[in-house]
Structures are given as structure tokens and as C-alpha cells.
């Protein structure tokens, strides 16, 4: 079986992609209106919503970049994981009820629709849409590039030398196919498959990691400690302040990620929230075990001299799969990796399309486009093409936009949506200032390479500044007028 390893991986990846296409074909019949296309008709059950939320959170970064960071920095990047449970608590307490109820009452099909209902301000709707669109383009381009690199490596190992452009085309074709045909319906059903594949892959890998050394994690971690005690300490090599700032921006910032919170608007019954939250948190914890396990074991293997040094930290997961995992497990994990990337990318495609065909026209013209679903399908293709071109030909710009995505979403959306729906004094002016400050700080810091003390994360700073401005300006302004129905929901 060992000699057929590459073929087995290729077969698993092929089967996974065929399944995504089949779901896309099946979902055509379920997508009859723009509400179905963007909101799945608000008919998702507990399992679908939970898996859609967690699999949208864990992108390809969790399967490649995350283990790579643990290998490189030690325990530092685990702070991006340990904040996740608290992030979900925040999303569900601050948002799940209010955003879902306002969505149904006002027939909102996107996050800016909810923002409009809350603030009665076209400018807040436009700024929210712009922040979403900018973040989406960067994030999506990074996901497409990651998908293409994974496919290229898989094809190369199997003896098919395909260029990066061709791999971008293949991966985008599958992604766009099911997103265009079935909209968010196909997206959430593929999320269910993708989430399942990720959990199975992560659990199997975690047990493989535990058995790599006879003494399990204790032996592995003692090896790392002997080489560098700080690396296996709670802050890793990044240091205390940097780790804590990741905890803040990835924890509180979790309830500002539009591709995640939009999924919370889609469940059938509001009362399902009490089941969705624990299921989401447990699923994420299970899938994140891969992040921790592979990173630590590869660091232990390399520092002890049992494995040659890696060319790049991102090679940690592929190298582990190639040398220490059973071929079938490697096949499942590679399919899981593509699943992780696609489940995030389809969410971005959907909210980006909503911003272009629904939110911006509504804010400018006062009404939605005619035949919105047709234009949504066309725009989905266009956004994917632009993001693919962007990914292939703009070099550093992709990295800049990709890196600034999470922090910008966090700083722009957390105050405006997560806090704004829970505080009647929040004003449209404060919301606009919070969004603009988040864009300015995140872009400015990247462009001017500003370094904060002791590796404090720039996204955390922009989140703290935008929250301060949002609360400060609101407190010193007159309370705004809120529609009585929205106010009634805010009182619940």
C-alpha cells in the first residue's frame, strides 16, 4: 500500500471534489429565491448550522499554517485556538438571538441588511459592505492560492506536473460550480461533509501523533523543553504580550467575522441556539487537535534530529503525513485540508456576492436589483475570477489583504454589530468611525510596517481602538432613534 500512497491521496481528493459537485447539482432544486441563495431560506437544522459555523472558522490555515506556526514558534499560536471556545460563547450570547430575530422580522439576507435595520443609516450599511468586500477579496484570494498549492503538490507527487494556473482553475471550477448552482444551500451542505472530514482527519492524526513517541505528549514535550524551555511554555517564542493579543483578537474578534455570523442567521428555530453552541465548540476543539498535534511532534522530531529540518514551516503537516501517517489517513487528511479551505472560501464568496448585488445597490438606489438571484450567480463567478487573478498576479498585495482580513473584520464588525445590537445608545456616527478606524489602522500598519511593543498584534490594537471610539462617541452623543420592532427585539 505504501507504494500507492500518492495514488490513494489523489483518489480521496477526487472523490471529495466529486461529492462537492454532486451536492451542487442536488442543491439547484433547493435554491429558488435570493433568500434561498443567501440565507438557505432560514431552514437549517442544528447539525447543519453547527458544522457550517465551525468549518467556516477553521480554514486551510488550521490544517497547514497552524501546525507550521506551532513547529516554528512553539506554543504561541495555540492562543489562536484556546480563545475559540470563548469566541463562540461571545457570538452566541451577543448575536445568535438578536441577529436571527431581526433577520426574520425584516427579511434580511445579509449582515449589512441587519446593520441597516439597527442604525437606519445608509452610510453605515455602505461602510459595512466596503469592509466586508475588502476583507473578502483578500481572504478569498489567499484561500484560492492555498487550494492551488495543495492541488499542485498532490498532482506533482502523483507524477502529473500541473502548473499553478491550472490548479487555480481546477480548484476554482469546483468551488464556483457548487456555489453558483446551489448558493449558500450547497455551501452549508458541503460544510457538513467538509466538517465531518475535518473532524475524522484531526482525531485520527491526533492519535497517530500520540503514538509517535512511546511516552506520548509528555516525552515529546520534554524533548522540546530540553531544546528551548520557552518554546513549550505557555507563550512560546512570541512572548506573553503577543500571545495575549492573539487571544483577544481571535476570541472577541470571532463574533465579528461576517462569513461565520451570517451562518448563525440561517437556523430554522431560534431556540436551537442552545444546542448549536455546544456542538460547534466541541467540533472545533476536535478539529483543532490536528493543529496542535502535528506542530508539536514535528518540532520534537526535528530538534531531536530524528527528522531532517523542514524547508519551510508550512511543510510540517505534509511531511508528517508523508512519513508517519498511514496512506489512507493521508488521503483523508488531504481531502480534509481541501475541505477546510473550501468551506471558508464558499462563505466568503457568498457574503462578497451579497455585498455587491444586494447591499451596495440597496444603499445607493434604495432598492435591490431586479432578478437578484441571476445577478448573484453571475457575480459569484466574477468575484471568484477576480480573486483568482488577484491571487496569481498581485504578489504581496494578496498577503497584505489576507493578513489584514481577520483583524479588520474584528475591529469593524464587533463594535457595530455585536455590541450595537445589544446597546440602544450606539449611534450611526460611532459605527461609521469604528469601521473607518479599523480600515485605517489595519491598512496603515501593514503599509508602513508599524511594529508594536513586545509583538502586540495590530489587529488587537485596532479592535481596542475601534471599541473605544465606538463606546466613547456613543456615550457623548444623543441616544439615536430606533424602530420600535427592532427595539423590542433588542429588549429580549
Amino acid at each position, binding site marked *: 500500500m505504501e507504494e500507492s500512497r500518492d495514488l490513494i491521496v489523489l483518489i480521496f481528493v477526487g472523490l471529495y471534489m466529486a461529492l462537492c459537485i454532486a451536492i451542487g447539482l442536488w442543491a439547484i432544486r433547493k435554491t429558488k429565491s435570493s433568500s434561498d441563495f443567501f440565507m438557505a431560506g432560514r431552514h437549517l437544522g442544528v447539525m447543519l448550522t453547527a458544522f457550517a459555523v465551525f468549518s467556516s472558522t477553521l480554514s486551510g490555515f488550521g490544517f497547514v499554517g497552524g501546525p507550521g506556526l506551532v513547529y516554528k514558534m512553539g506554543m504561541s499560536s495555540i492562543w489562536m485556538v484556546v480563545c475559540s471556545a470563548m469566541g463562540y460563547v461571545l457570538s452566541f450570547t451577543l448575536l445568535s438571538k438578536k441577529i436571527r430575530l431581526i433577520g426574520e422580522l425584516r427579511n434580511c439576507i445579509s449582515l449589512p441588511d441587519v446593520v441597516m435595520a439597527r442604525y437606519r443609516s445608509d452610510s453605515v450599511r455602505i461602510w459595512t459592505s466596503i469592509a466586508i468586500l475588502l476583507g473578502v477579496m483578500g481572504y478569498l484570494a489567499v484561500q484560492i492560492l492555498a487550494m492551488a498549492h495543495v492541488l499542485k503538490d498532490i498532482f506533482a507527487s502523483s507524477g502529473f506536473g500541473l502548473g499553478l494556473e491550472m490548479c487555480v482553475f481546477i480548484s476554482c471550477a469546483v468551488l464556483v460550480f457548487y456555489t453558483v448552482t446551489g448558493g449558500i444551500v450547497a455551501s452549508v451542505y458541503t460544510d457538513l461533509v467538509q466538517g465531518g472530514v475535518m473532524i475524522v482527519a484531526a482525531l485520527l492524526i491526533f492519535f497517530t501523533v500520540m503514538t509517535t513517541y512511546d511516552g506520548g505528549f509528555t516525552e515529546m514535550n520534554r524533548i522540546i523543553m530540553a531544546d528551548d524551555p520557552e518554546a513549550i511554555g505557555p507563550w512560546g517564542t512570541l512572548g506573553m504580550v503577543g500571545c495575549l493579543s492573539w487571544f483577544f483578537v481571535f476570541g472577541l474578534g470571532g463574533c465579528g467575522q461576517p462569513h461565520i455570523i451570517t451562518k448563525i442567521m440561517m437556523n430554522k428555530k431560534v431556540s436551537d441556539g*442552545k444546542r448549536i453552541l455546544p456542538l460547534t465548540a466541541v467540533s472545533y476543539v476536535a478539529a483543532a487537535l490536528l493543529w496542535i498535534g502535528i506542530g508539536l511532534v514535528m518540532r520534537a522530531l526535528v530538534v531531536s534530529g530524528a527528522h531532517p529540518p523542514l524547508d519551510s514551516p508550512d511543510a510540517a503537516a505534509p511531511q508528517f503525513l508523508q512519513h508517519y501517517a498511514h496512506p489512507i489517513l493521508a488521503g483523508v487528511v488531504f481531502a480534509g485540508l481541501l475541505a477546510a479551505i473550501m468551506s471558508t472560501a464558499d462563505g466568503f464568496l457568498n457574503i462578497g456576492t451579497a455585498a455587491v448585488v444586494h447591499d451596495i445597490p440597496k444603499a445607493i438606489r434604495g432598492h435591490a436589483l431586479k432578478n437578484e438571484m441571476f445577478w448573484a450567480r453571475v457575480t459569484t463567478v466574477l468575484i471568484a475570477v477576480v480573486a483568482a487573478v488577484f491571487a496569481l498576479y498581485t504578489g504581496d498585495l494578496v498577503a497584505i489583504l489576507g493578513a489584514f482580513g481577520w483583524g479588520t473584520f474584528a475591529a469593524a464588525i464587533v463594535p457595530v454589530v455585536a455590541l450595537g445590537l445589544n446597546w440602544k445608545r450606539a449611534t450611526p456616527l460611532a459605527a461609521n468611525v469604528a469601521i473607518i478606524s479599523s480600515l485605517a489602522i489595519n491598512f496603515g500598519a501593514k503599509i508602513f510596517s508599524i511594529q508594536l511593543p513586545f509583538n502586540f498584534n495590530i489587529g488587537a490594537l485596532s479592535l481596542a481602538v475601534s471599541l473605544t471610539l465606538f463606546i466613547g462617541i456613543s456615550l457623548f452623543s444623543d441616544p439615536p432613534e430606533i424602530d420600535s420592532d427592532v427595539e423590542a427585539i433588542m429588549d429580549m
Partner: protein
Amino acid sequence: MVDRLFKILLVLLICLLAVVGYMYFLPGATDALATVHPKSSGLLKSVADQPDILGPGYLVGFFFVSIISLCVLVGMSKRGSLGWVGKWLVSCFICYLLVYTSLVWVYSTYEAGPNAAFWGGFPLPTAIMIYGIWGFPAFFITLFVVTYDQWFYRDSDRKTFQDLLKKAGMERGV
């Protein structure tokens, strides 16, 4: 009550930004805390002379945990009140702060080496981070689940929402 929570949030945020600003003036603020590992260029190894930032570092984390926990309180409040769930939430919030404080305290007193204390496969401070900081929100989740029908989304809320839907339907002529 909610206005008061937001005022506390504002004070915490301003204090946080002040501490971050203060840290700029500490020695080694922008120095690298890690260097390339001698065994591989893809690995980082921490530098021997780590600057002592335990005090301001603890404060930064204290503000983060407090801000996040206060946001949970905001999310669980109804009509500006936390009602009977308030004491449970505040208890969870205080315990979460204690878990974080114990992490920093154990880290500051921990001695790494061949006989260093391990728990659950990890050095003691790291174990508190993994099982405590990551695991503790299970209490918040349990509280959310247990109080959901009695507090978070009650029958009276459901009825109010149905009335709102009916009214909106009539206004739309449905």
C-alpha cells in the same frame, strides 16, 4: 445597567491602551524575542535575555479577560438587567480571571528542566493554558444552555416575537 457595563468597558479599554502605550517606553520593547534556531532556519528559538514584562503583561491579559467577560454579560442582559443569572455569570467571570492569574503566577515560579512538573502531557503553566483557559468556557457554555429557556429566550420572548411578526405581516398586507 447596560450603560454602566459599557462605561466600565470604556474605562478598561482606555487603561489597556495606556498600558500598551507605556510598554513602548520599556527597554527592549521592539527587540526580537526569538532568533533563528541553529538547527533549522524554519525554527525559532527564544533569546536568552527575555525582557521582564510580567507586570504589564499580566495587566494586558487582565484587561482582555475582563473585556471579553463583560461582553458576555452584555450579551446575556435583558432590558438592562442580568436578573438571576447575574450572580452565576459574575462567578464564572471571577473564576476565569483566577484561572488566568494562576497561569501567570505558576509561569513566574516555574522552573524548567529535566525534573520539571508536567500535568496532562504538558509543563504545568502550559497545562493551565490548555486545560484552563481553553477548557473554562465550558462553564459559560453550560450556563448558556441551562438558562436558555428560563432566561435567554423565554416563552414571553417567543410570544412577543410572534406578535411582531404578525404586525409586520399585516403592515406588508400579507
